[in-house]
């Protein structure tokens, strides 16, 4: 049980490490909070709401995302999209990720 909990925590940490890259890569077009969560989940990256939503605000405060409120139907929603600054940062992060993926594959190859 303890081991299972420990592994779950480590998996959570691994996901947290890639979530910024995943979010920036998926926000080429405007998305609202819940649609980003669904989009990531549909593509295989389950992210906790408590992790994703505050992260969107943090990325916006860092200038990597932009947001605007839009009323659709009866309800307002905050839409997020990658900013000009985010577009500059994304390739740099992607390059780092590619290197990391190669390195880790090398480490983990049998």
């Amino acid at each position, binding site marked *: 049980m303890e081991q299972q909990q420990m592994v779950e925590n480590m998996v959570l940490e691994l996901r947290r490490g890639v979530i910024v890259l995943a979010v920036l890569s998926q926000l080429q077009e405007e998305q*609202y*909070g*819940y*649609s980003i969560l*669904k989009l990531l989940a549909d593509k295989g990256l389950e992210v906790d*709401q*408590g*992790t994703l*939503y*505050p992260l969107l*605000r943090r990325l916006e405060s860092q200038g990597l995302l932009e947001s605007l*409120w839009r009323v659709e139907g009866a*309800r*307002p*929603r*905050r839409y997020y999209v990658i900013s000009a600054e985010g577009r500059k940062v994304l390739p740099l992060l992607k390059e780092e990720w590619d290197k990391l993926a190669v390195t880790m594959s090398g480490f983990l190859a049998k």
Partner: protein
Amino acid sequence: MKLIDRYISEVADRLPEKMRDDLSKEIRSLIEDTLEDRAKASGKSVDDEVLVSEVLKEFGSPSKMAASYLPPRYLIGPRLYPIFWLVFRIVLGITALVWVITLGVNLAENVTSVQAGVDLAVRSIADFFGSAMVVLGNIVLIFAIIEWLMPKVTKEKESNWDPRSMEDRREQDKVSLAELIAGIVFTLIVMLVFNVYPQWIGVGFLDNGQITFSPILTEAFFRFLPVLNVLWILELVKYAILIRENKWTGFTRWMDIGLHVAGIAIAAAMLAGAPIAVLPANSVLGSEPDLINLFRYFVSGILVVIIVGSTVDVVKSLVRMFKK
């Protein structure tokens, strides 16, 4: 009020005012989107209380939800915590020691019966907790202020940090912060007691079935007090320099030796001169010649121990200075 409204209100209460409205609106939108999707999938209404509860549970408790939007905040952070804990324990220990001494003196001076003793002890325990809370509260406050002021200073320091600035300190030159703080506190207590409460230094005895407490320091001792004060102040200066330098240097070693030699000279002068402490003449103790002589030897013995101990310290300091 609906469950969602109550939840949003609870979260908002925990958020800073400037982000409260905007975040409340956003969290409501996120909850409603999730609810809408879940209702569609399960065929339930978005107002179904069970469904709403499930979704809110997924979002987490209001305090957890609010905390996730805020940077980590603490009164005393991990950098300061070890030194805070050290100071906390030292001060708590000293407060307890002072309390025990005060209680002992009060019991000896004022208590005439067991019941009165118990009453005094109970009152004294309440006083101790009161004083301890005030003292420790002040320590927390001071550290919280340091924590609040620290980020700017440490960030600047750390960005300019050069590994070559780390000094290669010899083992014998290292200082222990705990020992220095203990030394400062001890010196301050000694100064306080001898200058403000010299009557605390005395003996308790039974006189006609009543416990009596009498001071023992003589005029001869108080003639030495000004020079002792100078010595203690210099001792505090030495501790301050050691904390600042974070190691023993040639200067602090010589200063330490000088202070020890001065201490030896004062103790020797006390030993050679008129008695610095005597049993109270107007007491049963002061009328027993054997007891008076024994006490005189006891005081002389203490001075001899101080002289021998200080001499050993001087020799140790010299060995450390010249040890390769």
